[in-house]
C-alpha cells in the first residue's frame, strides 16, 4: 500500500498513458491480456503489482472493462472515453445493470435474468432500468421467441436476427404481405429461368408435325406462349446467390435480404410445391411463367374451383362423404344414413347433369 500511496500520481499517469497506447495501437474490440499490456513497454517490465494498480485505476474510471478470458485468465477491453463518461455518472447499481446488459450484446437480456445475475432487489432493478432507459442508454426489445418476456439491450445496438426473427418479421410479427410479395417475385423469376420459351417463328413449324399413329400434335392457339422444359443437366437454373442479388436489386424489399433469408423463403416455396431444389443449390420452378402469372393475377377471393394449380382432385375430395361433418355417424338405416343424406341430394343434383 505504501508504494501505491507514494506513486499515486504516477499510477494515474501511467494508466492514462497505457490507455492511450491501447487506443492507438489496437482496435477497440481487442481483448487485452496481461502480456499485451506489458508488451506495450510503458510499464517497467514484469512489475505485475504496478500493472494491476494501473488497470484497476482504469477500471475504476470506467475506461477499462474487466473480463474473463480463456482459461480463467484476466482480460480487459477498452471503453471509449465518451462511453466512459456516461458510465462514470451512473450509480453503482446502475452501472452493474448496464454491464450485465452490455455483456449480452445484440441478443438482449430478459429482466429476470438481469435480476438473477445482479442479485438486486426488484424495485431497485426497476428503478435502475428506468433511469438507464431515460438516459437513453438502453432500450427494451421485443423478442419473437418469447413474446411475453421483457428484454433489454444497449440503445445503440440493432437487435440480432434471433431476437427479431429475421428479415421476415416486422416489429416481432411475421410480415405476411412482405413474404407473399417476395415469394411471388421469386417464383416468377425462377419460373422464367427454368422454362424455355419457344420463339414465335418455331411455333408454326411444330404445328404441322404428325405422329405415326395419325394423331396430330395438338398445339395451343398461337396467341399463347409455349414453354418447354430444359433438358436434364441444364446449368442455367437460378442459384440462391443470383436470386438474392436480384431481389435486392429489384427494390421490392426495404431491408437488404441475406442469402439465408432467401434460402428460408425458397425452402418454404419448395414445401408449397412451387419450386423444387436441384441438389440444394439451384432451384427450378414447377409451373411455367404463364401459369405462375395467371395464378398471381387471380384475387384470393375468387372461386377456387377454377384453380388448376391445386393438386388434382381425387375420389375422396369429390364425394360428399369426404367433406361430411357427420361421416362417422353415418350408418345405413340410422339417423344419418346414405338414404336421407342431404349432401348426396345436392351433390347429385349439381353434378348429375354434367357427368355424361
Amino acid at each position: 500500500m505504501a508504494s501505491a500511496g507514494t506513486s499515486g500520481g504516477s499510477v494515474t499517469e501511467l494508466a492514462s498513458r497505457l490507455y492511450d497506447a491501447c487506443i492507438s495501437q489496437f482496435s477497440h474490440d481487442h481483448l487485452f491480456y496481461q502480456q499485451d499490456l506489458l508488451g506495450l513497454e510503458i510499464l517497467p517490465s514484469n512489475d505485475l503489482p504496478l500493472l494491476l494498480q494501473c488497470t484497476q485505476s482504469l477500471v475504476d474510471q470506467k475506461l477499462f472493462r474487466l473480463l474473463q478470458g480463456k482459461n480463467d485468465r484476466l482480460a480487459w477491453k477498452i471503453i471509449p472515453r465518451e462511453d466512459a463518461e456516461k458510465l462514470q455518472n451512473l450509480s453503482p447499481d446502475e452501472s452493474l445493470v448496464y454491464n450485465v446488459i452490455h455483456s449480452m450484446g445484440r441478443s438482449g437480456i430478459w429482466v429476470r435474468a438481469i435480476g438473477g445475475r445482479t442479485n438486486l432487489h426488484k424495485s431497485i432493478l426497476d428503478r435502475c432500468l428506468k433511469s438507464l432507459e431515460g438516459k437513453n442508454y438502453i432500450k427494451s426489445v421485443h423478442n419473437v421467441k418469447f413474446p411475453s418476456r421483457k428484454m433489454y439491450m444497449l440503445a445503440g445496438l440493432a437487435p440480432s436476427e434471433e431476437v427479431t426473427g429475421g428479415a421476415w418479421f416486422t416489429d416481432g410479427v411475421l410480415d405476411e404481405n412482405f413474404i407473399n410479395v417476395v415469394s411471388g417475385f421469386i417464383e416468377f423469376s425462377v419460373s422464367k429461368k427454368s422454362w424455355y420459351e419457344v420463339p414465335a417463328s418455331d411455333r408454326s413449324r411444330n404445328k404441322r408435325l404428325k405422329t405415326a399413329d395419325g394423331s396430330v400434335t395438338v398445339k395451343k392457339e398461337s396467341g399463347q406462349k409455349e414453354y418447354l422444359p430444359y433438358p436434364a443437366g441444364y446449368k442455367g437454373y437460378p442459384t440462391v446467390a443470383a436470386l438474392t442479388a436480384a431481389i435486392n436489386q429489384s427494390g421490392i424489399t426495404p431491408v437488404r435480404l441475406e442469402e439465408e433469408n432467401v434460402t428460408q423463403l425458397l425452402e418454404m416455396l419448395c414445401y408449397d410445391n412451387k419450386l423444387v431444389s436441384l441438389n440444394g443449390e439451384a432451384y427450378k420452378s414447377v409451373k411455367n411463367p404463364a401459369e405462375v402469372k395467371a395464378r398471381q393475377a387471380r384475387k384470393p377471393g375468387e372461386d377456387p374451383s377454377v384453380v388448376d394449380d391445386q393438386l388434382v382432385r381425387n375420389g375422396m375430395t369429390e364425394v360428399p362423404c369426404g367433406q361430411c361433418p357427420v361421416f362417422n355417424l353415418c350408418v345405413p338405416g340410422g339417423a344419418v344414413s346414405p338414404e336421407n343424406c342431404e349432401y348426396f341430394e345436392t351433390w347429385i343434383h349439381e353434378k348429375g347433369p354434367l357427368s355424361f
Partner: protein
Amino acid sequence: MASQYVAELCMLLVEDNFGELFGRIFSTLHRYERLTLQRLVGFTRISESRLRAALVAMIQHHLVYHYTPLEEGVTYYSANVHAAYYLARSGKILELVEDRLGRYAATVMSTIMYLGHAQVSHLEALPRLQPGPEMNGAHGEQEVREKHENGVNGMNGDHIPSQSTLHLTLKDLAAHGYILRVREAHFQSSADNILDIERHIRLGESVQNMKGKKLEEFVLEKRADMLKERLDGDLTRGLIINGVPRGVKRRRVNGTSDDLDNKRARFDYDNAGISGDGEENGWWDDDIPMESSLTIRVNYDKLDVALRNRRFLDLAEREAPRETSQVYDHLLRRIEYQTTKCRDSTEIPREGEEGEQYSVSIPLSALTQDIDPYVDLVGSLGPMDTSPNKRLGKRHFDDTVNGDDDGGGGGGDDNDDGTDRSDGNRAYAVDQHLSLLAQPPFNLTSKRLNRGLVTWTIEFRHLARKLRHLELERIVEARYGDVALRVIRVLQAKGKLDEKRLQEVSLLPFKDLRQVLASMQTGGFVDLQEVPRDAQRQPSRTIFLWFYDPDRIRDNILQDTYKSMSRCLQRLRFERGRLKEFLEKTERSDVKGNEELYLSEGELERLREWRAKESLLLGEVARLDDMVAVMRDY
C-alpha cells in the same frame, strides 16, 4: 382387410353383381370366418340344396375359398374378400384392356370375368364371342389389325376363321399376362395353402433328420418355393419375346415391320442377358391355338401393375411435355411386360422401413426402337447449350416481356443446332427425355449402367409412396387449404417439430398456424407428442412436438374410402328404389333397346336423368377405387 367397412362394401358389391343370395352367404362367411356346410346352413337359414348350388357358383367366381383337410374330411368355406373387392375394379380393367388390345379383347376379358374362370373350349362355344356380322362394326379395327398381322406373316389369306380371332386375342391377353391359368391352389386361401405346404414339407423325407431352428429355416425357404409353384399360373412363357409380348411389335403399321428380322436380331443382342428365351421365337406362329382344355382366369395382380403404371404416366403427363410422357409410356410398357405384381410383401411396409424395389431395367436402345419415329423429340425440350452468361445478361429479373423474347430468340439458334445433331442420334434424345423425368420434381425414372449399356429403370416403392402421399395431400388441401398442405409437407420432411421451429420453416403467422394445426388435429391428420422435461409433467415444463404419421392417416383414410364407396352404392340403391317402377318398365324385354319407341318424352328425360345419376355414382366409386388401389395395392 377384415374391417367393418370392407365387409359392408364387399357385400354390396357381391349383392349388386350376383344378387341377394350370394350376398347373404358372403356376409355370413365373412362374419363367421370359416364354416362347414352344416354350420353355414344354420347361420344363413338357406336350404342345403340351394346353398350347395350357390356355393358352387361362388367358387366358380372365386368369391369363396374352400378347403378340405385330409384328416378331417370336412370341407370348410371362407369368403374371399379380395376377389369380391375386385368386382369394383372390373370396369377399369376392361377399359384398360380395350385401350391396349382393342374392343374384342375387352369383350373376351369381360366374358372371362363374367364367368369367374373359364375353359378355352367353353369360350369357343360362346355365341357372344363369335365375331358374327353384327360384331364386325364393334371390333372392325381389331380385325383389320389381325388381318394385317396375318398378311405380314403370309400364313393366311384374307379369310380369317373366327376361332383364330378368339385364340389370337386370348394369346394376346396371355402374353400381356392379363389372364392366367387356374391352379388348384387358387381355390384355397393363402393361409390354408401355407399350412398345407408346411405339413407336406414336415412329412417329407428330407427333413427327418433336422431339428429346431434349422428345420424352421428349411421349412420357411421351401414353403416360399412351393407356394410359388402351386399358385403359378403364368401363361406368358413363350409368348414374351425378348421382353415384349408377341404381336405388339407388329402393331406398328408403317415402315417398321419390313425389317422385323433385322430388328429381332438386334434385340437379341441387346438384352440377351435379361430374358434369355430367344430360342422360343417359334411362337411367332399365330396358327397354334390355345390349348382348349386350358382353364383361365383374370390375373388381377398383373392388371394392378398395368393400372399402377398408368398412374405413373399420369404423374408424368401433368408436368412434362407430351413427348416426354410418350417416351415414358414406352418405358412403362416395357417394364409392365416383365413385372408380375406390384410388390413382394402382402402388406404395404411402414413408412421409412421400406426398401427400394427396382423394376427390370430396359435398355435405351430397345426403347429407341419402340418410339414412334415421327415424334418430335428434340423440339420438345429446351436447348441445353444456352450459355448461362448470355441468359443472365439478357434476361434480367424483371417482369418485362421484351426481355423474354430476346432471350428466347437467342435460344432458338441453339435449338437449330440441336436439330442437326438429332438426325443421327435419336437415342440421345430419348435419353434426354428420360433424364428429364429422372430429375426433380418428377423422379420418375432412374438410370443404370449395365455392363456398359445404358438402361432405365423405375423405383417402384418410391413412386408408390409418392402416389400415396399425393392422395393424402390432396385430401389435406381440399379440407384444410394450402396453408395446411405446407405444414404437412414441412412435418413430413423434418419429422417432429415444436411450434416455434415449425413456424420458422413454414413462415406462417402463429395465429394461422395454430388454427390450422388445431383443425387438422381434430381431423386426425396431425398429432401432438408431449415430452416432459421433468417427472412432474407440468405443461409449462413440457415440450410439445407436432408430427404427421402418414401410415396411420393412410389406414384411416383407407377405411373412410371403403365407407364412402359403400355409401355411394347404398345411395345408388336407394335412388334405384325411388324409381323402381319406372326402371322396371324400361327393363322390360320389349322396351329395352326400343326406348324411343315405347317411352314418352318425359319418360325418356327421366331415363336420361337416371342414367346420369347412375354414372355419376358408379364413376365416383371407380374414383374412390383409384384411391384404394394407391393406398392398399400399389
